């Protein structure tokens, strides 16, 4: 399994996909953040609501990681490298499990870096503007830890979806449409159903306001309790990952 892990990490290091991921993350998180710090008036920047908003600059990272996970798996089929993966390790479940694990770790490390970068940029930006900005935006260590775990889960989810559906463009497009639009529409029409949908559940694990936190009950009445949301997330990952491994075992590589 160590050899498999080395091979998987080398796959990540030896193409520009991972580098592209980091560039996209820098653009979607730090770009707007730097612009806001540079352009907003001092009294706006010092306001509580704005500091809270700045602290969530890394909220888009899981979406990028989801696509990264899908690409990580679908690229194997697209370029035919899955043939060599299975020739070297014919017990296919090992290939799949190691890919899921490595991508979970890469997702978590990437989120950790993103959160740290956001923190550093806010601190440095505030110092340059001469404003004392709360770089955490009110987040606790627990909030950060949950964001990092969810990033790992979402990346793994992407890998499993890629293994299930293989077709790269269709899988990426359908998943983004589902995550960004379909789930939210269902949540508006049927909140009791929407709250159980996968990407909304992932959000509930990492969300800042949860039932019992003293938050506005009107905002959180339909939300799952955090432990419940976490267990449902794990269940989603487990179901999709087991399905991905099972299908990979039976699929002909032609």
């Amino acid at each position, binding site marked *: 399994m160590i*050899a498999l892990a*080395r091979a998987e990490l080398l796959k990540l290091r030896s*193409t520009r996909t991972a580098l592209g991921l980091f560039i996209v993350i820098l653009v979607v998180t730090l770009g707007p953040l730097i612009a806001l710090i540079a352009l907003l008036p001092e009294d706006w920047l010092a306001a509580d609501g704005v500091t809270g908003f700045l602290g969530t600059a890394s909220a888009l990272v899981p979406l990028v990681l989801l696509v990264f996970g899908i690409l990580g798996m679908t690229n194997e089929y697209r*370029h035919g*490298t899955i043939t060599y993966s299975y020739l*070297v390790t*014919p017990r296919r479940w090992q290939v799949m499990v190691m890919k899921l694990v490595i991508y979970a770790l890469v997702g978590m490390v990437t989120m950790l870096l993103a959160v740290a970068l956001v923190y550093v940029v806010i601190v440095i930006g505030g110092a340059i503007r001469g404003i004392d900005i709360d770089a955490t935006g009110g987040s606790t260590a627990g909030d950060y830890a949950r964001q990092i775990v969810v990033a790992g889960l979402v990346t793994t989810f992407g890998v499993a979806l890629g293994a299930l559906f293989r077709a790269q463009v269709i899988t990426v497009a359908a998943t983004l449409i589902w995550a960004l639009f379909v789930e939210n529409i269902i949540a508006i029409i049927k909140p009791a159903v929407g709250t159980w949908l996968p990407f909304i559940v992932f959000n509930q694990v990492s969300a800042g306001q949860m039932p019992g936190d003293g938050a506005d009950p009107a905002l959180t009445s339909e939300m799952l309790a955090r432990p419940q949301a976490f267990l449902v997330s794990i269940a989603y990952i487990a179901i999709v990952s087991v399905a991905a491994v099972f299908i990979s075992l039976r699929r*002909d590589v032609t």
Partner: protein
Amino acid sequence: MPVIEAEGLSKRFGKKVLAVDDVTFAIEAGTITGVLGPNGAGKTTTLRMILDLVRPTSGRVTILGSRYRDLRAPAGRVGALLDSSGFHPGRSGRNALRVIAAGARVPDERVDEALELVELTGSAKRAVKGYSTGMKQRLALAAALLGDPEVLILDEPANGLDPEGMLWLRTFLRGQASEGRTVLVSSHVLAEVEQTVDDILIMSKGRLLAQGPIDRLTAGAQPVIRVRSPQAEKLEAALSASGAAVNRLNDALAVRGPTAAEVGDVAHTEGLVLHELLTEQPSLEDLFLQIAGTRRDA
């Protein structure tokens, strides 16, 4: 004990496509065996079933005494070239091999040796997307050789190679066999492997039509009579009427069935002029046509 053994091997894709139909064969150690047949004959599917990439619908196949998936460290025992497009285009040739080597627990030094063997050292750091088809084919061959395996399975290895590359490949395969390796190589270009292989498996439409040493199979085949005549059309009609199988090759005829003397007698009886009349041992292509034709007739 055979190195590769297939028994009643069949593969059906969906309900309509029977890609391989009840194929049984055995490959002996230290030989170069050609799997020959036209496109769609079932060669690639058969090779992929040996390597556990395609699951048989029925039958079984073993390599080195067990199923491929049950081999310990398979890359060190079996090397395979299946598709020259099995590399990420953005990865360098060397890194493409390093990824495979890492999974197979093969050190990076062996990657460089394999690149040297296929004469790609100078291009090792270039991205695969910049490689020609022939270079990709050599890279795939290097991937097959990474674990210094005792069995090589090569699917259409000459695809994309120029005549110089084909000569290089023939020499290379002979070298591998002389070192005691067992080589199973598929091709749809019969003349290409005729000079290379010891044994052949002839496939067509998913079925195995013939197998055995190439010398024995061609010796047992009917000789071909080549005959040239300025009245080729009349001669063709006369020979066909006498029951011979006749193929037109430009101004010459390839005749199967009668001897050269019998062809001469037919020409004499019909008052036709001959410019050339000779008996040829059948080529692999002739053998294939005979076998495939016989099976079709049957």
